[in-house]
């Protein structure tokens, strides 16, 4: 049995995402020229991809497990504002802010997870609620504490080097974090039993519980991971740009979901891969940024993204169908 035949590669969840990525890179190479793949060009989309990608992986895992988390849209500004208010406004040490940012992510993630597990309310609605609740809380508290919706922060050099600076003047250090998150996730999702649990959860929650999987714990852990990833990205953005805004982050909800779906994750759960999500994120970022390298009006990019999303979903359906109907040939 050969594992490297074309057929086997095409049946993997990331097959569509990989072909899609190649297609958009080729498209923008043709219409945008080689600048697009020169270091500065690569940085433009890689930076966008890293910011989305760190959040897209845990959100994608949640989607594989059959849940959705849109509260990330307000967790990003929450992360930014917590670090800016604690270390910028109050001038507390950075490590306290970092703990607070991740702690807040853990709290909101736990609330999301508990509400989804304990009630029969769909996670879309639960996280829609926390999305607005957190956004309101961040806005209210920021104005109450600092009197403004935009707070400056000047992080010490060490923390800037770790969380928010441009390597070589163009590449955000967040790219390295993204690579690390991807590698760790690939290992845990595809090579350990925990990954198996996530897929089982998305396949059939009841059977998964009967098989002895701690479904409640897995679900809450995934919600905590997605909330923490969003507040972490928010924190890094504040450190990078030396300031935090209350309103940044809502566009991430759609961008992340598009990246995950283009990456081959099935909305109903049970199918997908981390590598696919990475490909999907790159694809989205390339389309999002590539338009600047072409002669096209910027306004057309949403059209391209929309068509791409639909094409991706259709293509993923085809590939999934192939995977399902696969049977080894009679020997």
């Amino acid at each position, binding site marked *: *049995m050969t594992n490297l035949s074309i057929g086997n590669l095409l049946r993997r969840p990331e097959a569509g995402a990989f072909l899609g990525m190649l297609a958009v890179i080729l498209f923008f190479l043709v219409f945008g020229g080689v600048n697009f793949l020169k270091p500065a060009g690569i940085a433009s989309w890689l930076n966008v991809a890293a910011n989305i990608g760190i959040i897209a992986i845990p959100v994608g895992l949640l989607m594989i497990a059959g849940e959705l988390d849109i509260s990330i849209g307000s967790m990003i500004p929450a992360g930014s504002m917590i670090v800016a208010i604690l270390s910028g406004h109050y001038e507390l040490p950075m490590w306290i802010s970092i703990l607070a940012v991740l702690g807040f992510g853990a709290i909101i993630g736990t609330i999301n997870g508990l509400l989804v597990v304990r009630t029969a309310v769909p996670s879309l609605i639960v996280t829609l609620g926390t999305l607005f609740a957190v956004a309101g809380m961040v806005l209210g508290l920021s104005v109450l504490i600092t009197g403004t919706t935009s707070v400056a922060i000047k992080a010490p050099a060490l923390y800037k080097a770790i969380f928010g600076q441009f390597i070589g003047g163009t590449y955000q250090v967040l790219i390295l974090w993204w690579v690390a998150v991807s590698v760790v996730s690939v*290992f845990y999702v595809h*090579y*350990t*039993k925990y*990954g*198996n*649990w996530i*897929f*089982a959860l*998305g*396949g*059939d929650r*009841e*059977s*998964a*519980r*009967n*098989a*002895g*999987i701690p479904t409640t714990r897995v679900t809450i852990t995934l919600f905590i991971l997605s909330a923490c990833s969003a507040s972490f990205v928010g924190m890094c953005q504040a450190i990078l740009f030396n300031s935090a805004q209350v309103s940044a982050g809502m566009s991430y909800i759609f961008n992340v979901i598009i990246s995950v779906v283009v990456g081959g994750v*099935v909305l109903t759960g*049970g*199918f997908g891969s981390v590598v696919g999500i990475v490909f999907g994120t790159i694809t989205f970022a390339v389309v999002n940024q590539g338009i600047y390298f072409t002669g096209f009006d910027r306004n057309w990019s949403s059209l391209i993204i929309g068509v791409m999303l639909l094409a991706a979903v259709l293509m993923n359906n085809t590939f*999934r169908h192939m*995977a*399902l*109907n*696969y*049977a*080894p040939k009679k020997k």
Partner: protein
Amino acid sequence: MTTPVLELRSVDKSFGPIDVLHKISLKVRAGEVLCLLGDNGAGKSTLIKTLAGVHKPTRGQILMDGKEVSFDRPRDAQDMGIATVHQFGGTFPLMSIGRSFFVGAEPTKGWGPFKIYDRKKANEIAVKAVQDFGITRVDDGDRLIGGLSGGERQSLAIARAVHFGARVLILDEPTAALGVKQAAHVLRIVKEAQRRGLAVIFITHQVMHAMAVGDHFAVLIRGAVAADFVKGQKSREEITDLMAGGETMADLEAQISSDLATADGHPSPATL
């Protein structure tokens, strides 16, 4: 006579004021197939859920090997060796055979945080377990469950239960959604499980399927055991009539033919 592996002694189950099960007493021994027959709403599902630990009986006893047991949750029943296989196999369509076989009990290799899921071993064991049950078409553990036929899925689920040490196998309408060939397939698997000494509780409303494999039959009507008999004591027609609650097949035929004669095949307004 050997002690029954699983026995119910006048088990009642009510949800609030509604009595769903009434004085159910049943026994199943190792290497025996007990067929539970009943029309929709007769209380079959509630009975299965009580056996599987989802519900606790309101009154009455559940005994295993002659000792009284009590299940607080499905896991307790599983730990005692009671495995339930549901109509659609209770498996994960988009997972591979090997992975779904070992869900919740994944074989691993390695050390500490680097323990990895042992795909090769999982696939080998899963494929062998299924093939031992005579399903030779399944030979690649990487195939997705969704690509298997309904009968193969059922067989896989039964093989899985046996592999993980089930002593009592509860099959919830395993043949209901299957074609004739696939159903025959599953019935063979049921026989195989019986041959291996499992106690099998086979729930169905298809009398033919029950008669093909059953040693012992119980008919449920409105939550009570209406008849309890062993193989060969009753004919197919008698069982069908019992399940319909005393209304005989002949009555039903007469009703249908009178409808046909009077109202172009639609039920006559008077009976609606």
